[in-house]
């Protein structure tokens, strides 16, 4: 029983990481129909941002560097996204498969750039002292870094929800997503809305990257470990659906942790995939259907 509870906690923890890496995609993929394979590299960029800040601020300011890197990574990754949107993706709206291929080329280049700038060797990012170690609750270990990521994921999700649901900017984003022509006709500058959406989605990837520095070391291939999982979360959750992404991320996390407990880590991945295929048999549109008939 305790083991089960423990695995549920692990599942929530995996889920919060999945949510964090997938959140940006719910904007770029879900709302704009852009399959950005370079999303993983924006995550990587966020992680390297933390590393660079630590190098700049020195060993005595680790906490400051880490906290500062959250907004800075948002801007860095966001600007990279903006650049990508303005140069390439703009030309490819309505050709989702081509965005996938083009951004994969971008991902290749970004990885090699990271390798040439920071070295093929992984780099070490130090953790603030308050994130080391953990606490225990009802006999279950709760590492601080996991708690932090969980809290961060929740905070970012709420922030994204507020932006999309409550702010004027968010309403415009939804309007463009649902009917581009109509939105354009009613005076919304769709091009600028696209840019902002892409900035936001890419920036969220940067934040995810900062969080990931607390789990492992940072290397050029960091993003590739997460990209597929992130897309699966969005597909299962339903396009452009924040609540869908939340439910999907945690469900996949829990399925993963439970099957890993009863089998092995390698098999768990396969089991999760089988679950997704079966799930899509019943709900091809994801947990929540989109209001738009677009993309598919």
């Amino acid at each position, binding site marked *: 029983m305790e083991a089960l509870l423990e695995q549920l906690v692990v599942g929530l923890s995996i889920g919060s990481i999945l949510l964090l890496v997938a959140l940006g995609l719910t904007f770029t993929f879900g709302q704009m129909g852009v399959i950005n394979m370079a999303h993983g590299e924006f995550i990587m960029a966020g992680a390297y941002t933390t590393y660079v800040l630590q190098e700049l601020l020195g060993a005595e300011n680790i906490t400051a560097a880490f906290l500062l890197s959250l907004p800075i990574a948002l801007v860095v990754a966001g600007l990279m996204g903006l650049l990508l949107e303005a140069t390439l993706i703009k030309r490819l709206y309505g050709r989702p498969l081509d965005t996938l291929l083009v951004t994969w080329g971008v991902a290749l280049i970004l990885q*090699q750039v990271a390798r040439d700038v920071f070295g093929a060797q992984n780099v070490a990012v130090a953790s603030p002292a308050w994130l080391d170690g953990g606490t225990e609750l009802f006999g279950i*270990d709760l590492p601080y870094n996991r708690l932090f990521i969980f809290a961060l994921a929740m905070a970012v999700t709420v922030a994204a929800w507020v932006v999309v649901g409550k702010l004027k900017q968010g309403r415009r984003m939804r309007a463009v997503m649902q009917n581009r022509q109509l939105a354009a006709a009613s005076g919304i500058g769709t091009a600028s809305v696209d840019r902002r959406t892409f900035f936001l989605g890419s920036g969220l990837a940067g934040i995810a990257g900062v969080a990931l520095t607390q789990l492992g*070391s940072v290397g050029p291939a960091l993003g590739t470990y997460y990209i597929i999982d992130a897309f699966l979360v969005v597909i299962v959750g339903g396009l452009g659906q924040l609540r869908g992404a939340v439910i999907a991320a945690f469900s996949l996390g829990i399925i993963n942790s439970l099957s890993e407990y009863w089998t092995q*880590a*390698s098999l768990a991945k396969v089991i999760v995939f089988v679950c997704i295929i079966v799930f899509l048999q019943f709900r091809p549109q994801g947990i929540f259907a989109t209001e738009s008939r677009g993309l598919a």
Partner: protein
Amino acid sequence: MSTREKGGRFWLLAILALCLSAFVAVGCGSDSKDEASSTSASASSDSGDTIKVGILHSLSGTMAISEVSVRDSELLAIEEINKNGGVLGKQIEPVIEDGASDWPTFAEKAQKLISQDQVAATFGGWTSASRKAMLPVFEKNKALLYYPVQYEGLESSPYIFYTGATTNQQIIPALEYLQKEKGVKKLFLVGSDYVFPRTANKEIKAWAKANGMEVTGEEYAPLGSTEFSTIVNKVKASNSDAVFNTLNGDSNVAFFKQLDGAGLPSDKLPVVSVSIAEDEVRGIGADKVKGQIVAWNYYQTTPGAENEKFVKAYKAKYGKNRVTDDPIEAGYVGVKLWAAAVEKAGSTDPEKVKAASKGLTLDAPEGKVTVNGENQHITKTSRIGVINENGLIDTVWESDGPIEPDPYLKTYDWAKGLS
């Protein structure tokens, strides 16, 4: 299908034909001179002013992290030899190829080095998979490969020299250390999901069974994984005395962090790692692995004049912040061993080099090493070390002199039936 499209096919086929012609032309151009002399690779390789050798490591892809440093040490060794007049009075000319972390590419490039560049020997490889991919290429061409990394044993190709440790020079001493010095009775096995950890763990289980140690669990994580919560939970539930860790480089950070988060720091639960060397510590961050136990045959801190010279030269060439470690040293030793054998044989002919290598000894940075003529591994001193706060490793235990290599564990009763 409109007529215009039919025409399109012709044009495309024409382009295809052009591509092919270009391919043929380029192929002929670069091969024509080799064709004539391709009867014996070795005969022609020392006929010019230089002797070509191949350096084949992953310079791109995931394995570049580890292999680039080994390439560097091999180049250093070649430079040193050339400064002292080369071999057989000729300069050594390295031909560098990229294995791109892809095993068939290793096989392809190995073939290219042998048949196009006609190298006298090749130094390269890191993963077992890349070695297994290259093995048939070297055997069928009767060419030499020097492989610089510790591995899982159970292999001894007549055309490969193994300058890294086999299991009885690294893993078994580590197990003995755990049992005798640390009093470990229950051991948990954690590894990355590939060949070395799985085969090594099979040997560990056989050893444990024979020596009264209990293996409480065996878990594998996909390569590159940073998710160890479940494995850590299993480790914790098993009440083990120690963990034997065969995780690959970048997974270690996550694993150690999560052990720490679960209240199992290194002083409470010792972890012995066999895949973390100084170069990996540099990427992981010394603070995260400080105090962890590792098992290798060489550390940057290993005493001796040869090593002082080596470390100095390596840092002088590649920068102060670079470190040397076991595979880096083994790559260096490989080049030196080959050069010594060529001098002794008076030829670069692989068969003569093989014959001359039998019993050849060398004062290596790790101490005196001797080539075992039978299995072409080298004798190695086993050293257990602890990572310090500078990211270097302090030796805490050392075997009594070099251990004879025994890749098939023939001299161990408990290993019967393993191979």
